[in-house]
């Protein structure tokens, strides 16, 4: 579950900042293109223009990556919680999504098989662990 829509989060980045970034990116690309075009005729100037073009593009790229990382960090993701319901008499088991009001050892609806009262025996969330870091400890 995501607490807030991504549209709302995007509004936290000012449009003037994005405009500036794209202007710098445009100028960098122009510099790269110009540098490449004069590389044969005026290599001294071309190296400089290419250097500034690369630097500008790198700065814009870095800033955009940072911006994306910050936005993704704003999301709070809570994995779904499941409720396990068991029939103590016939052993029938039902796993469903947690519903408000559920609690462990609560008697719920009758069993589909034997009509005996069923009991909530477990409520938990399961997280798939990322691959463990390769530390030798």
């Amino acid at each position, binding site marked *: 579950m995501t607490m807030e829509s991504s549209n709302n989060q995007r509004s936290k980045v000012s449009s003037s900042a994005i405009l500036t970034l794209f202007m710098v990116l445009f100028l960098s690309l122009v510099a790269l293109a110009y540098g490449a075009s004069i590389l044969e005729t005026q290599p001294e100037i071309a190296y400089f223009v290419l250097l500034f073009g690369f630097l500008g593009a790198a700065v814009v790229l870095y800033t955009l990556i940072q911006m994306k990382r*910050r936005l993704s960090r704003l999301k*709070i993701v809570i994995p779904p*919680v499941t409720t396990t319901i068991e029939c103590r008499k016939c052993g029938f088991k039902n796993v469903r999504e947690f519903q408000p009001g559920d609690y462990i*050892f609560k008697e719920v609806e009758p069993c589909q098989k034997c009509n005996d009262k069923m009991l909530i025996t477990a409520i938990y969330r399961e997280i798939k662990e990322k691959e463990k870091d390769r530390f030798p400890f």
Partner: protein
Amino acid sequence: MNTIGLMLGLQNQVAQNPFGDSSISWILNVLFYAVFVIFIFYGQRLQMVVMLREVEGSLYKLKYIKEEGRKITVQTIKEIGKPQADPAARVDRFLEYFTISPQGLDPAGIVWKLEHILDVRDVRFKDEVKLMAPSANETQTNNLENTLEAAMALNYIYKVVRHYYLLGKKTYSLYVVMQIQMILPMVMKEAEAYASALKAFAYGQPIGDGAGALVAAKLLHGHETRKIAKDCVVATVPFEGRTAYVIKAEGPGGNVGKPGDAIKEVIEENDGKIATVVMIDAALKLEGENLGEVAEGVGAAIGGPGVDQYKIEESLVKYHIPINAVIVKEDVGDAVSPLRKEIFDSVENVIERIKQVVLERTKEGDKVIIAGIGNTIGIGQ
């Protein structure tokens, strides 16, 4: 450092005369020395700006979490409590509540003073929640109280981080900013844990801290319980040929009860003739330890402000009763967020450990106390 490295590289290139002896190499030389001088005088300030930006990024996130916390709390109160008026103003006031701990210059009797203040706080919180949510039943009131406490914690964390950030900006002191920057990863981890706890509390889902209560619930389920002390229940359960008094906080509402008073009462009821006490609680794990790992030791396994631990230790010393502890390891995030499968699965291991302790440390026919400590939210009996 990176800028200096880049400039050094450029200077080397210039030294190799890639452009000949032009004015460009002269400009690059001057630029290199200018940056060098700037770093000598303003290096620390630049470092501080980088740190401030890092804190600022986290502060944005904290603000977002705090506001979400407030929103969830208000929504939950409206859904469950069905108040006549908008509870937002009252919630805002509640978020600023504080508790002053007793004076410790003369420590004699400080435990009772602390207990009194905590009792007053508890009553005040419950009254406030009842006013905010008049239609809520007892379980829901307890859950709402927990939700509000999580929102309060988020509000406080945000304010403290903001305080250091603004103070650092105002004073231009690297050391003020450094203090908060150094502990920021831990602070963020805690804030994220409280954020996920909010929904758990609002819906009444069991949390990681309830591992002890869950063990007790499994042991006493199906046996008759009676109320003992405040918000606690006890059941007399036959256990491996012994009589076990299984104690837990009364669920399924968010509650930790007063296990100190409960254990003391059971000991007094039996004139101190208790062979051993086994306490089960969730404990913080160290990095590298597995979630849900079970460990065994001695001592009163109970957290909180220390009042209950003091009472338990006093009663045990009075009758020379040995105390054993079984803990379930988890990190701070897992302790306040919805119960994880690993912790749930560890319950059977804990019960096996308790059996082992009881069989090894007591004789058949003895009386033992088994106390499951922790927040019993989402766990009945």
